[in-house]
């Protein structure tokens, strides 16, 4: 009996947790956290590719992995900027939601440049990788220029 009660209780609790999670998912502060983590992760992989391009490390085995990760992460970036997440601990500019088409186009452009980097990485010619990385960096900057607040 006691055993049964414990199982039932566990089931109720589990339901409560899952149900709770469903209703609380995508709270603005968590969405903001998610996209900032995503951007930081992109930054980490970019930094690694840059270390190689600059000749500061020579672990070329990681080049393709890092480059592909940038593409994959950026493809998840769009969903991390839903309506209602302009306020809070975020550097996202309200313009994202005033001109969504332009924001999406900026993201598409960056994804294209990241794919070009991944292709160059596969080819292994470091001069081509450097050029592709430069183009990617400028594309990231173009979105930041329009859509990210920079105050420190």
């Amino acid at each position, binding site marked *: 009996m006691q055993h049964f009660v414990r199982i039932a209780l566990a089931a109720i609790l589990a339901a409560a947790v899952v149900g709770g999670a469903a209703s609380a998912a995508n709270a603005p502060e968590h969405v903001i956290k998610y996209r900032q983590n995503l951007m930081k992760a992109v930054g980490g992989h*970019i930094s690694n590719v840059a270390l190689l391009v600059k000749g500061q490390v020579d672990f070329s085995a990681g080049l393709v992995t890092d480059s592909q990760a940038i593409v994959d992460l950026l493809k998840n970036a769009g969903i991390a900027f839903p309506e209602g997440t302009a306020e809070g601990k975020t550097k996202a500019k309200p313009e994202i939601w005033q001109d969504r088409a332009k924001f999406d186009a900026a993201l598409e452009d960056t994804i294209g440049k990241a794919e070009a980097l991944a292709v160059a990485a596969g080819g292994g010619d470091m001069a081509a990788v450097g050029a592709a990385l430069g183009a990617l960096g400028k594309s990231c900057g173009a979105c930041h220029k329009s859509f990210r607040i920079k105050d420190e």
Partner: protein
Amino acid sequence: MPQVIPNQGRVVGRITLAAATVLAAAAAHAGDPERGAYLAAVAGCASCHTDFEHGGRHYAGGPPLLSDFGTFRAPNITFDPDHGIGKWSEDDFVQALKQGVSPAGQPYYPAFPYLSYALMTDQDARDLYAYFRTVEPVRESSPGHDLAFPFSVRTGLWAWRLLYFDPADDSLDTATRGGYLANALAHCGECHTPRNRFGALRRTKAMAGARLGDGDVAGNLTPDPETGLDWDAVDLRFFLQTGLTPDGDAAGGAMALVVEHSTGKMTPEDLDALVAWLQDLPPVRNTVKKPPSD
């Protein structure tokens, strides 16, 4: 050779010298549009005079430039006779760029960085003129400035110039290529040097970081160990080419435009000179404050 037949040598020497002078004078007059195109890129003319974000035509007028005094709009500088500067002579152009005075004798606002361009050589200014003559003329006027009183009164600028514009001032390095690039052409200090409350640059804190009119912060570029930039030459060079920091962050704000249109287009030699010059800056301790609203 001259030692063997000294007399003749002297004559030949004099003739050669005279010929060289004539040639140099001719060369100094004919602006070179190709050199001018490179100089226009390095000097960042497009960042202010082209509205890239809204698909504006080249040099037909720029986006709003926010400042503490109001909003400036850099005008159409294509050679359209009615909407641009199509009627300007080379001298008009050089005077505007290096003295900040229009052909009609009106002073320009320092939002047009003529205090930096004043340090440019005449030859570079003439090459720029030659280049702009090749840019496709655009028949459209750009919207004017939107400034608060009393800044909207242009004649007030004469007093400002008296205090803050000294064409004979040679305190900024232009003797080295790096210094010339940073101070005269790419005008890094226009953003990275703090200003006083009248908008004049504080030369004693050159390149030590500043808050811009749009709220962005252009950091301290001097190698001060606490408040400055501790990147090595490779990192700095890479950043100026790509806009990517050593952490993998991508420069935004006005710097994104600088990288895209100016430093990202520099020749390898110019980049090296600029980086070496930056690394040689005397350290200045200066922390840039965040905007008061935060």
